[in-house]
């Protein structure tokens, strides 16, 4: 098991290194950020001086070298826009995004397990057909549309919920609800399909032949097998939110990582962009590692040879 974890870290580190390199060079293709940060009427001399100070005039390779040297010291540099260490800015935004993902993904997962399993128990039945249409719809509805309709109905017309911000628990209801939709739709379909396969397998018939009662068959034999294909999909969906629930964060005015990433690109705040990418990549990597570990714990075939 230890070897498994070490391997995971090595391969994860390699992916991260490649990612960071790509981001560094691609970001600099967008141009020199100096113009965005000096007054419109600043002289050429001032512009040149600032660019020189910030190192924007150095060859890109030299900039990359400096970046790596800083990185080795654990320093991700200063954010141009916020004039603070970039990592601090990201750290401030992270809890919002983590909370969004931490609420939306478990809710979607549990609902998907219930809806998908119930559908698979009576394939083609009324519940299955309604759930099938609804989950397909949930998986395909655009975020921004859902968000705006949600605000219109629940905040503007009914006045039950606030339109934006993060002040109270009620502020979180709409954003989380919007974020639940797509994972729920996709996961319910995954669960239904895998459950259908599992329910028609021989070991389920064998469990029934043993005389096990239906709940014991379902919980003890069907569910663990049906969950396996779902785990990786859960991680991908979680990664989608960690990577920045850009639209939801912007529409609901939530100071999360997604909005930060968008801003850092628009303002050519390279250090901040790099910091955001590194932190989210690490978060996603941890999520994937946890999923692998979970799979290895559930499925003995993965750890034995």
């Amino acid at each position, binding site marked *: 098991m230890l070897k498994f974890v070490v*391997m995971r870290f*090595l*391969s994860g580190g390699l992916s991260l290194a490649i990612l960071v390199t790509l981001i560094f060079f691609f970001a600099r293709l967008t141009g020199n950020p100096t113009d965005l940060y000096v007054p419109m009427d600043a002289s050429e001399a001032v512009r040149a001086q600032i660019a020189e100070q910030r190192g924007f005039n150095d060859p890109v390779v030299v900039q990359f070298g400096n970046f790596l040297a800083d990185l080795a010291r654990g320093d991700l540099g200063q954010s141009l826009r916020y004039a603070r260490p970039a990592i601090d800015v990201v750290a401030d935004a992270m809890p919002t995004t983590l909370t969004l993902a931490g609420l939306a993904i478990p809710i979607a997962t549990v609902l998907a397990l219930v809806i998908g399993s119930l559908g698979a128990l009576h394939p*083609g039945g009324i519940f299955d057909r309604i759930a099938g249409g609804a989950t397909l719809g949930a998986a395909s509805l655009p975020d921004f549309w859902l968000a705006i309709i949600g605000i219109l109905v629940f905040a503007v017309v009914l006045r039950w919920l606030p339109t934006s911000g993060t002040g109270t628990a009620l502020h979180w209801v709409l954003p989380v609800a919007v974020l639940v939709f797509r994972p729920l739709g996709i996961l319910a379909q995954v669960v239904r399909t895998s459950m259908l396969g599992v329910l*028609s*397998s*021989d*070991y389920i*018939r*064998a*469990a*029934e*032949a*043993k*005389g*096990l*009662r*239906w709940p*014991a068959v379902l919980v*003890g*034999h069907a569910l*663990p*097998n049906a969950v396996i294909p779902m785990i990786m999909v859960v991680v991908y969906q979680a990664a989608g939110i960690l990577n920045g629930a850009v639209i939801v964060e912007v529409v609901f005015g939530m100071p999360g990582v997604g909005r930060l990433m968008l801003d850092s690109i628009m303002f050519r705040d390279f250090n901040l962009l790099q910091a955001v990418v590194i932190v989210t990549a690490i978060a996603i990597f941890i999520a994937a590692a946890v999923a692998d570990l979970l799979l290895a714990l*559930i*499925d*003995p*075939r993965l750890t*034995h*040879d």
Partner: protein
Amino acid sequence: MNAAAPLLRVENLSVEFRTAAGITRAVRNVSWSVLPGQTLAIIGESGSGKSVSSSAILSLLPMPPARITSGRILFGDMDLLTLDASQRHDINGKRISMIFQDPLSSLNPLRTVGSQVVEAMTTHEVPRDQAQARALDLLEQVGIPNAALRFRDYPHQFSGGQRQRIMIAIAIAMGPDLLVADEPTSALDLTVQADILQLLRDIQKRTGMAIVFITHDINVARQFSSAIVIMNKGAVVEAGATAEVLARPQDDYARRLIGAAPDPAAPISAYRRPPGRAPLCRVANLSKTYPARRDFLGRRKGTDTAALKNASFDILPDEVVCVVGESGSGKSTLARALLRLEAADSGTVEMDGRNLMALDGDALRRVRRDMQIVFQDPTASLSPHLTVEDIVCEPWNVHGDVVPAAERRAAAERLMELVGLRREQIALHAHQFSGGQRQRIAIARALALKPRLVVCDEAVSALDVSVRAQILDLLTELRRQMGLSLLFITHDLGLVRAFANRVIVMRRGEIVEEGDVQDVFLAPRHPYTQSLLASLERLVE
């Protein structure tokens, strides 16, 4: 007939399956009964309804699409078709239990085998500590070595035969009155098959349970059962005492089915390999090793597997060479390496004196034209998107000179007739044919290039007995007409007896014995061949 009251009576059972494609009446007015302690064999080909009728006993039919339209299943004076969930719980696994065809998929892969045996008892209110002690005892009884050490192992760590033994341990855990065995040995190797039958018989002697044994194998039924029911297309066509029915079948279908089964007492084909003839195909020292898997850093996990070790043999023109062996013996690797579908590590394959291993590109393509293959599963080996015409004509796209483009349609139709299909069926897709017909299409494709050697890799193993006999007849007839040589790979020794000229016996990647068929069968030299043949003839006591 015995005067004792039947243990279980199936009366006028009818089952239909409703699907989008329409209603299939899978079982029609079927009646049979089994006495306490008796072994009843239910025989039939795929689609005969033999498994459907017995799945109904334990309420294992998927409903929907299945629907029971008439009948009763009486167990004592209880109708098993009318039980509620709690009555059902008192029957399944306790009074009646079941084992299935595929031991590889009948155990939950995520749970230890011990827990799965224990569960069969705890669900019937046996206290956990007692259940654990008995589970260990059961695993020993069914012949799992080191049962105590292996209690916490997972199903994938056991062989197919061992997994079927574990299934049997689960089935007998509560001491049932009746065991329903649905093709319990069909997926197993011959030697393992005999062991499992013997185990079932031993348990039956000790416990006195009755067995309903569902099988397609008449020879197994002959050895194992005292009463027999023969089913065809959902109906019982003949029933009675096994010896009586098999010796003097009354029904037409029953007669054909019994006639098609390889008869262990049938004469062996006599063949003397003519001396001095040049071989069509000469295989020398062919070897193939599958390297061990490697981990992230390239270190080897486990050991290399030598799938084929220094295989050498000849095939003469117009000769049927059968390769027999159990699963994992390297038969299929041999076929693939011989055709260069897979690269051998060393050795040579000569067709007409030209070494295939040294050829490339066009030269290789020209030689390959003479060597074709028919695979085991015709459903998987025929593309579902293509019409039969596309499938049969496809080889001519590669070898354009065999048949001029203008004549291809007519030539393809002739091939259809040659393999016993109708000309007009050429426009259909593969899924519109039965399994046997699909294999005929695969054979037509193999014959399109007028090959001189056809390799059949378990080409009839997936087919029903009567269909199997037809395909073998077809191959024999084609061989006569076209002067083909066949390399016929099979695990079915009974088939080899009547069909082969030469026999090659493989074990663990090595050829352990080779010779003319009657020599190998009547005077096997290698101990492995002897044990293989013994398990074919071994009667269950």
